[in-house]
Every structure is written in C-alpha cells, then in structure tokens.
C-alpha cells in the first residue's frame, strides 16, 4: 500500500475532527472531535514508522496516553459545567466576552 493513502485518510479524519471542534455545540462531542484529530495524527505517525523506523510508533503510544489523560480532564470539566449550568452547550459559555 502506498503511504499517501494513509496520509489521505489521516487528513480526512483530521478535517472531520476540526469540523467537529468548530461546529458542534455539545462539549462532549467537541472532545470526541479532538480525539479524532489526535488519532488522525496517530495514523500519520504509524504510517511513517512503517518506512522510517519505529520512533513513530513510540510517539503514537505517547499520544494515546496523553489523549487518555486529556479526555479525563476534559470530561471532568464538562461534568462540572453541566453541574453548574445543567447544560453542556458551549455556545452559552461566553463569559470571557470582551
């Protein structure tokens, strides 16, 4: 298989993630979109490691660990937002408006 097929898949997946982060109102879905972007990066890393040594795989493992931590913190924030507001709609969270 060609490398560019993997890269194309990763780019599509990343774009979907960006779209989800920018457009979705639900905080949980935004987090999930972030996961998509991270995994798109993982695909890239693993794909390149096939041709350029195992360093990419090690990085991918790190990214997975960091993503897990990030999701833990992110979901805790979302949970607290929900407790305070009875909603996870991030459009309403504009108190830092200048």
């Amino acid at each position: 298989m060609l490398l560019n097929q993997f890269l194309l898949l990763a780019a599509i997946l990343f774009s979907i993630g960006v779209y989800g982060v920018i457009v979705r109102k639900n905080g949980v879905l935004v987090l999930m979109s972030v996961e998509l972007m991270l995994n798109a990066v993982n695909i890239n890393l693993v794909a390149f490691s096939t041709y350029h040594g195992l360093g990419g795989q090690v990085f991918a493992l790190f990214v997975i660990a960091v993503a897990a931590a990030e999701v833990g913190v992110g979901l805790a924030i979302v949970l607290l937002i929900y407790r305070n507001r009875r909603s996870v709609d991030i459009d309403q969270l504009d108190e830092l408006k200048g």
Partner: protein
Amino acid sequence: MWFLTHAWIIPALMALSFLLILFFGKLMPKKGSEIGIAAIGIAFILALLTAGSWYTHNNEEVEGHGDAAAMADVQEGCSNEVDHLAAEDHGEETEDVGDHEGEGRSDDGGSDEGTDDHALGQSDSGEYAQSDSGEYAQSDSGEYAAPAATSTAVASEGEEEHLTRPVVRCAAWAEIGTPGSSLITWGTMVDGQSVLMLVVVTLISLMVFIYSSEYVSGDRRYTHYFAFLSLFSASMLFFVLAQSTIQMIVGWELVGVCSFVLIGHWWEEKPNSNAALKAFLTNRVGDIGLLIGVAILYFAAGRSFSILDLNILAANGGISHGILLVASVCLIFAVMSKSGQFILHTWLPDAMAGPTPVSALIHAATMVVAGIYMVARLYPVFFEGLSIAGSSVNFLAIVGAVTAMFGALLAFVQKDIKKVLAYSTISQLGFMVTALGVGAWTAALFHLFTHAMFKATLFLGAGSLSNAAHHSFDMVNDMGGMRKVLPRTFWTFIVATAALAGIFPLSGFWSKDEILAGHGSLFSAGGNGTYHVMLVMLLIGAFCTAAYMTRTIWYAFYGEFRGHGTPHESGSRITVPLIILATLGAVVGVLNLPEKIGPFTFPESISLQFEHFVEPVGAYFPAISHAEFNIPLAIFSLALALSAVLVTYLYYWKGAFKFLHGLSERNRVAGLGKTILVNKYYFDWLYTDVITGFVKGPAARATNWFNQHVLDGIVDGTGKGAVVAGQFVYENIDQKVVDGAVKDTAIATSEAGGVLRHMQTGRIQQYAALFFAAAALLAGVFVVAIG
C-alpha cells in the same frame, strides 16, 4: 649658662603668679598682692642673674672659626640655617677642602666673609663684605667688619672681636605638611637684647607692683588687678624671649589683651571701657600688618618661623630686597599701632583711663616698647628691606620723626598731666623708631632703656600727685603748689624731667644724643646714611619736650594750689619706687659712655658697655656702623633743651613774652594752630566721625539701599523670572508635550482595545476556528516558502 638656657622660668613664674592670684588671691591676707610682689621680685633677681650670666658668656673667648662656632649655643633643630652652617663647617674641618675658603678669601683683603654660606647667596654676601668692610673695617670705633667675620680675619685686623652667641633653646610646637618639612617651634632666644628687656620689664614691673599695692588699695577688684598685672609682665617676658615669630605674635596679642583688661579696669564708667576698646581695636588694625609681615617672611625664608633664620637670611641676601621691603612695611604698621606711632597713635592718650601704675607699666616697659623691640629683633629685615644704610629717607624714619615732632607739639595743649606724659611717650617712641630707621640700633635700645626709667618715674609721680589732689589728673585746675607738700615726688619728678629733656649728665642726654648723632648729618660723620630732615624734626621734638615738661612742672608744682582739700605726701610704698627709679633714670646713662669725647678718652672697661652687652655681632645681624660722640651736636641739642626750659621758665614764672599770652584769642593763625592741637590734628575726628561715621551713616545707608534695591532686586527678579519660566514650561511643555504624549498613548491604547475587544467573543469555537485558520495559513506560507 644655666640661667641662659632656663630663661623660660621667668615668664613661667609670672604666669604661675597670675594663676595663683586668680584662684587663691582672695584667700590671702593681703588679697593676692604679696604673691605678685614675691613673684616679680624673684623674677627680677633671676633676670639680674641671667644678665650676669650673659655678661660672662658674651665675654668668653670663642674657639674655632666661622658662624657655626659662633652659634654653638643654638640647639639643634631650632634654626635650619644654623644647622646647615654647622654641618658645612663640620664637613670642612674634617675634609679640609679649601675651595670654599679660597672663594671666600679671594674677594677681599680685610675680612673673610663666611666660608660657609653658600646657601645664603655667595654673590650677595660677598658684595656686602666688600662694600662694608672697605668702609668700616678701619673705623676706630672698632666695629666688626662683616657679618661673618672669622677669627683669622679679625686677627689680621689686629682687633679683638667677639661674635655674639645667642643661646637658643626650643621645643616642637606643631608640624606643618610632611614630617620634617616645616616645624613650628617655641622656645627662648636669649641674647643681649632679650636679657636687657628681661631686666627692664622685671625692674619696672617690680616697682609698679610695689607702688600699686598702695595706689589701688581698697579697690573693689584689687586681686583681679594684681592678677592681670602679673599676666601683663608674663606676656611681655614671653614676648621678649620669643624664639619664633609665631611665638612673638602670641606674646604680642597677650600684651594687647592685658592692656585691654587693665585700661578698662574701672569699666563701670563708660569712657574707661571705651578707652579700653579703642586701645584694643586700634591695635587690631596694626596686628593685621604683623600677621601679613610674618606670613611673608615665613614663606620668603623657606618656611621658617625661626627669628634666627629670618635674620640670617635677611642679613646675607637670602631674601630678595623687594620681599623684605613689603614685609617691613607691613611690620611697620604693627609698630604704628603697638608703639603709638602716627597715624595709629590715638589709643595711647585715651589709655590713660586705666590706673596710673598700669600707664607707667604700659609706657615704660611692656606694651608700647613691644613694637620697638620687634623692629630691633627683626632688624636685618628692616635694614635690608628699607635700605637704611646709605639712604637719606625711609618709611621707618619718616614715621618716627613725624611722631616725635607732632606728638611733642600735642603735649602743649593738654590739661591732664597724664596726657602730657602720654604724648611725651608717643614722641619719645618716635625718637626710638627714628633711631631704628636711621640705623642707630643701639641708640634706640639705649633710649628705650633710659626712657623706661624716667618715664616710669614721671607716671608714678603723676599718680602720686593725683593721690594728693583727690584723684584728679587735671594739673591746670586741680593742682599747683605741690612742691612744698610733696617734696619727694617733686624732686624725683624734676630729675626725671631733666632726664627726659636731655640735660647733661642725666641718662636722657646720653641716649638722645646717641640717636641724634646716629643720623649722620649736620655736625656728625659716620652713621649709616645722612638723614638731615629727620635730624631737624627730632631737634624740634627735643626742644618741645623740654618746653612742655617745664610747663607741666609749673602747673603741677608751682603757683597756688587750685584744687580743694589738703594735699599730702604719699606713703613710702609710693615714694620709694619713685626714688629708686629716679636715681636709675639719672645714672644709667653712664652704661654707654662714648669711647672718647673730644680729647678726653674713656677707658675701654667703662665705655660702650651697653653696646657691647646688647648689640649682636655675627651673621644674624647687619653690619651697622656707629656714629661717634659729636661735641658740636651734643652742645647744640643741650643748648636747645636749656633754652626751651629757659623760655618756658620766663613765660610762666616771670610772665615774660606778654604778647604771647592770649595770642590764640587775638591772632587767627595762632588760634587756628591751637584749635588743631586741641583737636589732636583731628585724628579722632577722622576715625570716629569721618571713617566710623561714614561707615555708620552714608556707607550703611548706601549698603542698605544697595541691598534693598540691587541685591534684593536681583533676587526678586530671579524669583519672578523663575515663576514666569515655570508657568511657561507648565503650560507649554508639561501640559502639551509630556501630558499630551501620555494621554495620546492612553487614548490610542483605549481605542485599539475598543476595536480589538470585538474579537474576544468568549466563544471557544470561534477561537479554535481562528486558531486553525491561522495554522492553515502559516502552513500554507511554510509550504510556499520551503517549496
């Protein structure tokens, strides 16, 4: 020798007496006077012993040659010059190198001037030796030939010549600059001159102390009086023994302070305290001259205060003529104030406000002779600075002659007997200053010596008179006919008057004649210069002296008693000092008999003893020459004095010259003359009204106006200008530029914030969109750039 090296004990003793009287005087049975009398008595005995010691020392044979041997009694470190000479001399002896000597001996035949004063300027001193020795070496008065005549040279002249060896002891006082560069020392410099003054001061003081114990008895500040009398003597003794000029200044000022205290002894009366202030302040004027003069000499002599150094350098050309001239003129101002010379003499008559014994002390021994002594002490400075040798006019002689003549004239219009004596002192001091001015150094000191005796007698006699006349000194209104009631006072007064007038053979005759002969003019030959004008002025002064003293005797002792009450002779403590002093005043003239009077020759053992005793011979004294006794001049001056006495006698006793009586009322010129004399040549008017008045009145007002208008105007203007400038800066620069910049920055920031705040929506997704857009943009740029 012990007495010469320990002369400091004499002033120290008097200072101790001052402290003892001050602290314990009131506890003593006689209120402290006994301490003073005992101290001054011991001091007098010590002074006599010192004089005897000096006499022996001065006659000793000196071994070796040159100045260093001559000054063998100078303690090391007291005089740089002498140390220097000693070092060179020593070197010469051991090495026996003849180059110095050859140089010294080649330039003259009669005398060898100093094998060892390269430092003093060989050419100058060589010239000196030539010119002077050529003239004087052969003179039969037997003078030494050159400042530094050596024993070999003297031997070649066939004369026995002694160099004077001053005994100098000193201690370090302070050090200036780097260690060893300039040491201020204090100590004693004992030679004939200071020993003479020791004797005079202690003798007169002793008499005055004894006299005072009766004269001021019962005074409310009796103890205080004796304390300051002691300090007065101590100061003067300290002054005459001074080894450095700094020490001289200290003594000089101490004398001034003591005179201030004693003149103002009865300060409760305003005129007395005014007189004290006047004496002090007038002296301050002259003191400035002293300070400047000493400072000039200090630097000119290569940073030395030592009197010996100054004299050696000045006498041998080590200091330039111009500097010496300036220094001597400055010092003459000091003499003017201290010794009551015109134009700073005005304090002296006013100083009569003090108790009479104090006046006697001031006039005879302590205060006023300090100026004479100072000139005599630093004589090379004046001798070289004023070119006394060979000139016919110089500042010192002018000051003295003017004072001698005009001072004597003033005495004619005084009613107060003490003021007559005061002007007489001024005039006689003028004689001494003139003598110094014409180079008759010994004559000046001899006159100082004789004058001290008879002037003290006169003052103490005046005190005795006033004691009888209910403490009045007005001889015209409160005295008269005292001859019968005060016989002892009368006779002593007569003797002293005759001595003062210069009647043969009393002491005044000898000393006055020596001064007159020293002018080297009219009938006399020799001398250091020819001073015709001064001689004439002094002769007029001498004539007036005889006349006004006769007038005084007429008013005080003859005629009818014009006072009130019954006059009585004073007690023995007053009359005994009078008799002693009058006797001395009569006979001390024989101490300096000339070597020969016409065909008659005095043996060497009795002639010129005073000169031999007092006058320094050596490198630290100029080669002055001495006039011989001059018979025509002596007869002329004696005739002048006698005719003055005769004229005055005829005028007062016999009523002769009737046209003269009341002349001043009838004749305008005579009236004008009298008015000028009564007003003392308007000097007081000049000082009090013109100078002081000008300062107090117009000058003060002008200064005030200047202050108010000009200085304050400048200050006000500056202030106003500053305010205007400040306002301008505030309005234009601070407000517009500085504040404008600050405000505009703030406005710009605020408006930029207003624009940019719209971007901050608070919506996280918008931020994310922007973030991704920017990242995409940057990635695009990156790709393009790399590509």
